[in-house]
């Protein structure tokens, strides 16, 4: 069994729901870049089993669309927390980390959330013009973050 890639990008979103496609779009562009040591997983929604995807990583980056997020994006460290658990039908990154910690008895790797501002989320719509710009801006930062040797 091969070891997991040291960097995991977990991109979240529905490609057919307007700016909810920000996560999958960034995932597709990142995969096209072909960075070494990076695994990209795309999901509709975060779920409990995603805790298992975190095992054996050095860095984890959640990528998602956000409403009310500062444009073009917000990048923040993620730590385990139950504060965000008003729903477990779609978990927050904090809750995925908390689930990992409880199941594994240890903390997951250094974890970031890249939250890119979206404007409209209607079924059947594509990315808005504003979201396109935000994706461009976020991609450069995401690529930087995927390079482990740049770690502080």
């Amino acid at each position, binding site marked *: 069994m091969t070891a997991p890639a040291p960097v995991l990008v977990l991109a979240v979103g529905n490609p057919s729901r307007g700016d*909810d496609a920000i996560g999958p779009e960034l995932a597709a562009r990142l995969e096209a870049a072909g960075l070494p040591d990076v695994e990209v997983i795309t999901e*509709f929604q975060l779920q*409990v089993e995603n805790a298992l995807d975190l095992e054996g990583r050095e860095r984890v980056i959640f990528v998602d*669309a*956000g409403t009310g997020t500062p444009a073009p994006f917000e990048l923040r460290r993620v730590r385990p927390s139950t504060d965000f*658990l*008003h729903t*477990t039908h779609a978990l927050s990154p904090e809750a995925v980390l908390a689930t990992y910690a*409880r199941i594994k008895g240890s903390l997951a790797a250094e974890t970031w959330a890249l939250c890119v501002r979206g404007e409209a989320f209607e*079924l059947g719509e594509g990315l808005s013009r504003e979201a396109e710009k935000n994706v461009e801006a976020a991609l450069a930062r995401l690529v930087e973050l995927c390079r482990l040797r740049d770690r502080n």
Partner: protein
Amino acid sequence: MTAALETAANPTGLKRVVIEPLSRVEGHGKVTLLMDEDDHVQQARLHIVEFRGFEKFIQGRPYWEVPVMVQRLCGICPVSHHLAASKALDQVVGAHALTPTAEKIRRLMHYGQILQSHALHFFHLSSPDLLFGFDSDVARRNIVGVAAQYPDVARQGVLLRKYGQEVIRHTAGKRIHGTGSVPGGVNKSLTTDERDELKRDIYQVVAWSRDAVHLVRRLFEQSLDTYRSFATFRAHTLSLIRADGAMDLYHGGLRARDADGRTIFDHVDSDHYWEQISEEVKAWSYMKFPFFKALGADDGWYRVGPLTRVTRCDFIPTPLADRERREFLAFDEGRAAQATLGFHWARMIEMLHAAEAIKDLLHDDDLLGHDLVVTGEHQARGVGVIEAPRGTLIHHYRVDENDQVVRANLIVSTTHNNQAMNTAIREVARQYLDGHKLTEGLLNHIEVAVRAFDPCLSCATHAMGKMPLAVQLVDAEGAAVDSLVRGSA
């Protein structure tokens, strides 16, 4: 009594309570309560936003794209839409009987979906309420709280769900947005390596599923009075049934029974569902209210889902699950099988059935076959009906001479259960809220009732910041009197 709570006799001067959205229920749902000065409930309504924009989304597309596209309607049960659409389009391409390999691969995919969905629902949506109590500390009443106090339960839930998703990945091609099922069959079968990989863990999955059934039974035994009476009501039922009366979650005729188990109709060709079912529109709700035509809108509403399927089939065609079904039906002189919280027990029996069915299929060499697709004479219309994790799911399409979809109609399980869920929350309002000052714990009772049905609201948009939860008490003039707020991302 509960029916009367649909509309208050005199709404002037009543306080209005809004629970929006329901926590641990997908997407956006809202409950409104009207209460008088003495905190007596005068009106209780569940509002759910129906699928919107679906027809526009699908119209004009070539039919062969539909089974993949419809998965984008829902982030929780995409496989159910994938298979229901495929079944409808089998008819469009004239595939009236699939090859053994195609049918068994689809069934395997479906049982994987049932397994992972039921595991998620029980271990991560409902078990916090059931293990800690409806009034317990809200900070603990979530999956992380379960993981802290019941680590084995939480771990098994995660691994059961993971296994179901591995079944989906091998049969549909990918973990999400799979393409495995196509009009007329499937586009891949299993390799020997894939089958052996799934075989490796299936006996553990069956054992854990059986343990989960027994866990729910113990919860019933510990709080018998609560489980027996909580939000319980009488309802007609609707489900698919195999020709010999067996539970069949993939294909069958329609069976409708009344609250006493008497037949309303049986083995009706599901292609002609509209001859039996109609839908009523109510001014206060975005979601329609289906009913049996023969009984009319007022008396003909019904309930679908695990509790219906387990109690209304003649038997379950796998031995462990059927044994658990019989014990469930006999428990507490049959009262558990009538209880709204019986959904949870029934759901775990179905999860066990799905695990057993997967085990049986993994020992069937047809899964490795190469005869994958059949076609025949094309027709303009197709109906696909399947028992999705939450209940009966209907897809209905009309295709023109250019192979484009010109009409699409879906009736999802949450729509079938609309009146039943409204009846459940009115029963909770009458039992627990009437005459009491509202607290978070009391309001959670409403949510416990709704979660038993596991409604899947038009979802899949989950972006951070999209799901705040606020409960607000306002007076008749709209002024805020009090509020309860939970954390939001």
